[in-house]
């Protein structure tokens, strides 16, 4: 877990992108398909990584005022 997951995901995505790049057959749509695969993987990884990174060391924590104290402790089951 932790920050390493981002790099792990990055390498997985690079791998997927490479795989996609190679495996798209020649044809009139090859350029579009390749570009699209690369862009999709890039955009999705980017958005996920930003969100994950932002929660890695959060500066604030969630606060609520509408909870009721539990009758049973969480680990009692």
């Amino acid at each position, binding site marked *: 877990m932790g920050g390493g997951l981002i790099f792990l995901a990055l390498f997985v995505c690079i791998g997927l992108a490479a795989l996609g790049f190679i495996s798209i057959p020649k044809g009139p749509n090859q350029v579009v398909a390749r570009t699209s695969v690369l*862009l999709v993987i890039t955009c999705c990884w980017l958005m996920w990584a930003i969100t994950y990174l932002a929660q890695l060391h959060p500066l604030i924590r969630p606060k609520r005022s509408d*909870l009721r104290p539990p009758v049973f402790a969480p680990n009692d089951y």
Partner: protein
Amino acid sequence: MDAAVGEFPSLLRSETMSLIQLYVPIDVAHSTVEQLAVLERIQFKDLNPEVNPFQRTYVSQVRRCDEAERRLRFLTVQIASQSIPMRPYLDTIGLFAGRSGAQALEELDSRLVESEQRVAAMNTSYESLEKRALELEEARQVLIETDVFFREASSRSEEIRTSYDDTSAPLLGDVEQRGVEESGFGGFELEFVAGTIDRARMPTFERVLWRVLRGNLYMNYAEIDDSALPVPASESGSSAGGEEKKLRKNVFIIFAHGQELLDKIRKIAESMGATLFPIDSNADKREDKLREVSSRIEDLNSVLYNTNQTRRQELVKIAESISAWWAVVRREKIVYATLNLWQWDQGRKTLVAEGWVPTRDIPLIQGALRQASEDAGSSVSGILHELRAAKNPPTFHRTNKVTEGFQAIIDSYGIGSYQEINPGLFTVITFPFLFAVMFGDIGHGILMAAAAFSLILMEKKLGKKGTGSEIFDTFYFGRYIIFLMGLFAIFTGFIYNDIFSLSLNLAPSQFRWPTDFKAGDVVEGIQTAARYPFGVDPAWHGADNALIFTNSLKMKMSVVMGVLHMSFAICLQIFNHLHFKKPELIWAEFLPQILFMESIFGYLIACIVYKWSVNWEEAARNPPNLLNMLIKMFLSPGNVLPEDQLYPGQATIQVFLLLLALVCVPWMLCTKPYLLWKEHQKITEQGYHGIGANGHDALSQEDESDAEGGGHAVVSAEMDEEHEFDMGEHVIHQVIHTIEFCLGCISNTASYLRLWALSLAHAQLSEVLWSMTIEGAFEMEGAAGVAFLVVMFAMWFTLTVASAFPVANPEAHVKAALTLVLLAVLIVMEGLSAFLHALRLHWVEFNSKFFVGAGRAFEPLTFDGTDEIPAGVIL
């Protein structure tokens, strides 16, 4: 300068176009144009631009087509007014199979002339018959009403005596009564004038008569029943079978004594537009006349009916093939209009054509030429010749049904210059993605994707034209765009952890709630060792300070994405510079731009990422505010207070980056004009040294014929004129460009914050919808609570989606219909809004970094649209 033609077309750049010349013998010309129009791959140039339309070669044929079109229009309007359905084009294709367009037009011409004459003749005869019928009907009404008058007069014998002193009694009433008794008006010559007049004119008529005759008349009138008089078709001015408007007329009968008075009455009546009818005073004779008129009316009506039937039959027959006729005429017109663009070579009896063709498709054109000569039955076919050094080619992007939507929205901004990098290629993914960043919700994404998917499934049925409705067609044309938008919205919904404003718990949250507190206390989540693996932690949902966290996240995400998007756009310049063989521009334009952008905003996003990756609790420091840091970098460079320091060495690095950005500005400002000036110098120097200067590649497109003739002085003067170089203009242009870029960097980066703003708005609206409808229902208890929940669910569901799901209960139908509005409003309204903003980001922020967009679109010769009747013919 053109790219070599690759094995397959690519959307990265527009297609390589060639200017070709066709030499076509006359007898093959017509079928050649037909074949090329079917191919849709060639755009012809007008080789006779100075010739006015009336002097062109094929003007008589075009005129014939126009005549035929006029006749077709007439017939179509006739058919439509009779509400006869016309067979659609696809069913009529077989009618002209096997015949070339020219033969078909010949045949069609004669048939059209014949049909038009017949229908027009039937129309005129119908109209005249109708008019006659009307006159007869009026005569009949007059006969009927005057009969009533005479009978009324005879029945009023007693009344006359009693009302003798009554001033309102008619003057000649007693005389009339005596006259009727004596049948035939024996002693007293009482004469009358009878006729019809427009109801509107009646009062005026009466008044005029009264004044002129000084009251020496007795007038009676009655209204003709409205349903009895149809207006003849010619008066209403509409086509055959026009609507029946009612003519409002009155029958009048005026009794007066003396020839003079009667003459006056007749003159006045005629001047007021009344129609006079000769009526006999003898009742029997009137009855005979009435019978005669009635029988004639009946005869006329039957003739009218027969005429109508015959005309209708004729029109029905025509309606069966009129779609095919329209297609033939429209195609012939296009063919002859195209032939008029070609040049007529008198000596060799051929036509010369010039046109733009994608280089890849030249074999197709040659195939079409061969096919055309086969069709024309000639052994000689057209010859294709490729021209070199052609100027100003059109821009052609070869799209398929998926990419044509995206290319269309990019083309609305501007057609790309010939062979520059096409933003449409990247738009296929970045546009739906940026939309989804502003729209993230799994539920809404699923609904949107499902709706678009259903449109995609209907593709075969709806074809290219779609339905008639314009609004629906807009969505239909963009179905693939909407589908991708929906799919990405599902993804971003997972990231934002938002499904219909609720959150999913895909994994244990990284916060746990404390256990020792009292109800109503403000409790803070405790960080655990785990981290939520995908998206925003569900613990934030419903927290009081949720917005503080999500705003920070989304704002930073927007800036990061924006800077990366723009940097990508700047990098695309490299490809353009390399392709157009101007590598010096990479140093002159690309490098300063990218350095300027990255040293300020690239630095910013690096700091954002760095600040996220530091564990501030462990470091036991307050994390510095990045915005202040950026501002202070400019306002007081080199001074970084220890408590504001993000990383060691910050001050030095910031000063370095600032200086780098500062250096880029004069770099951008001066380098390109200097390069242009140097080039110009080189040209003029070469001009003095010799003729036929090839000059730079950039200036090589001028005609080679200039190089010959004249002395050196003439040559250099010509060269000077052609390469008119205004240094001042270039410098000003570059100044504007530089200022635009530098200021644009800041404003465009801030502009990307709309990604945050819209996603916030969407999330809040979604939450409001939920809390206003169903959430309340969950809190109610007991049976009422259950019922309320059901109702609210129906409301919420329908509001959200509804139309696709059948609802058995009619009550729920009503509530569903009411609530459909809310979710439909949410998805459609927010969808359109986010669509617009994502489009703006592409058009302004992305395109301005590399896109020139000064091209013209490729508009090939096509028969598209000829299988429909042109709009406006049938109203």
